[in-house]
């Protein structure tokens, strides 16, 4: 069942001189199994939207309905939402606090009703898909790990709950290129297994390559909702929103401007390469 957001508005510090309207009249629907990228200039309300979806902020106006029930309804059981919807915040490595990695990853399972063995099994699964050797890492202290490892442990802690929806706020910021790729492969794999992904990122490449739907925010408003192909096709509009497009898209755009006949719905590397190759080969044959 989907997430339905209807006329959502949110204002920080309402009624004070610091009043900031962070979300304005946002409506959208998220279906199961989607891979959604959220883009927008700094301060446009991406994190606020995520907090609202996770039920951490009460909307000033509008409603958020998850699987048929309003998450801000009076009778709604929030712990149900916590099990259904996992959130990886910006710099999640800051939330580690337990003495061992195993305990930290198991934290979210405390109220899940699983027995001890089941919990251990879940923790093993989560750590292994995040690229760890369970036996080696389980008893280590999270504080002694490197930044990248800490982040993967934190993500394992969210995945251990096996959420149906996974929301990520800038998950790849600060990762090295290899870590970034491994991480995106992991997310894609989870998505292929049916998990709905909502990922905020400044990185147009990662959105262009992996997301199948993009939400564009600007000044708290939803100004774009569609496939990367659709939204990235207008490079100038993206720039006017202080956003870039994926490099593959930019290359296709520049080649076209330079007189090369390249399809303009290319956003990802794996489509750009054959297209350019075909064009070059085609050019050769004509000569």
């Amino acid at each position, binding site marked *: 069942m989907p997430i339905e957001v209807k006329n959502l508005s949110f204002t*920080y510090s309402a009624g004070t001189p610091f009043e900031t309207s962070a979300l304005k009249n946002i409506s959208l629907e998220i279906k199961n199994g989607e891979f959604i990228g959220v883009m927008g200039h700094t301060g446009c309300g991406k994190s606020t939207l995520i907090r609202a979806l996770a039920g951490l902020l009460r909307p000033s106006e509008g409603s958020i309905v998850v699987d048929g029930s309003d998450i801000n309804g009076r009778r709604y059981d929030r712990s149900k939402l*916590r099990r259904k919807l996992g959130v990886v915040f910006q710099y999640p490595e*800051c*939330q580690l606090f337990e003495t061992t990695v195993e305990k930290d990853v198991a934290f979210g*399972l405390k109220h899940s009703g699983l027995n001890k063995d089941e919990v251990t099994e879940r923790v093993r699964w989560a750590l292994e898909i995040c690229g760890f050797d369970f036996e080696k890492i389980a008893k280590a202290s999270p*504080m002694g790990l490197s930044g990248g490892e800490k982040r993967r442990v934190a993500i394992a*802690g969210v995945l251990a709950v096996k959420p149906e929806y996974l929301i990520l706020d800038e998950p790849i910021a600060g990762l090295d290129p290899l870590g970034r790729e491994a991480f995106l492969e992991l997310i894609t794999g989870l998505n292929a297994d049916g998990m709905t992904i909502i990922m905020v990122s400044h990185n147009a490449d990662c959105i262009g390559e992996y997301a199948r739907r993009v939400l564009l925010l600007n000044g708290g408003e939803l100004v774009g909702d569609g496939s990367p192909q659709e939204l990235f096709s207008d490079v100038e509009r993206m720039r006017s929103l202080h956003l870039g497009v994926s490099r593959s898209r930019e290359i296709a755009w520049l080649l076209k401007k330079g007189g090369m006949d390249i399809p303009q719905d290319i956003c990802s590397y794996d489509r750009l390469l054959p297209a350019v190759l075909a064009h070059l080969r085609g050019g050769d044959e004509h000569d």
Partner: protein
Amino acid sequence: MSMTERMTGQFIPGASLLHSLDARAKLFGFILLTAAVILADTVAGYALIIALMLLLTAVSKLPVSTVVGSVRRMFWFFVIIFIMNCLFYSAEDPIWSWWIISLSKAGAVQGFNVMFRILIILVLSNIFTLVTPPLEITSAIQSMLKPLKLLRLPADDIAMIISVAIQFIPTLLQEADTIKMAQIARGARFESRKLHERAAAMLPLIVPMFLSAFKRADELATAMEARGYRGAKHRSGKKAAPMPAGSYASILFCAAVCAAEIII
């Protein structure tokens, strides 16, 4: 503080008389008025204090709701202070007493006095920080601490420590809020009604907060050293400007209020 509210008492830019006063004068005046509030113990004294608060609020041109914002949220704190004072005041002629608890008129008066003073001092400090930018507060503290140098105490370093602490408070509060949200999303139950669950739930908040505070302190120290900080006395501090006459007048005014409270 929660994510949806700014820290109360955070500076709000403005063009009122209070905003334009020298920060040193405001700090000094704040201390004098706090003394006045503590000295007040008659109905006339209280009336003067209340009139003064109204005057300050009017002159500051701030919305009343902002000035009393934090106080309203501490309602239960005041109720508890009042009750505690009422019950544990050992008067000669209790109306009713049992074991160490006794109820008397004097106790109720005492409870009211304590509550009233804390409340007014809170509002006063709120007004002070609302009309004074944090950096100016710091340099005002710095000049107030100058006499400590005569006692060979490291006044500049103390002022530096206070200023760093003041500047980090909003950051740390914001961070506490972010971490709290992250842990709630992971299933932490801060809002649980069971006391033992709530106590245990503080751990996921406190541990990361300490870690990050230490990390920040460490980073700041490294950055300061890297940029050549070797104790405040090596700094070429800029000469403090003399205070304008209006500021002296405001200090005089506060001193007058203080004197009036001693007399009545």
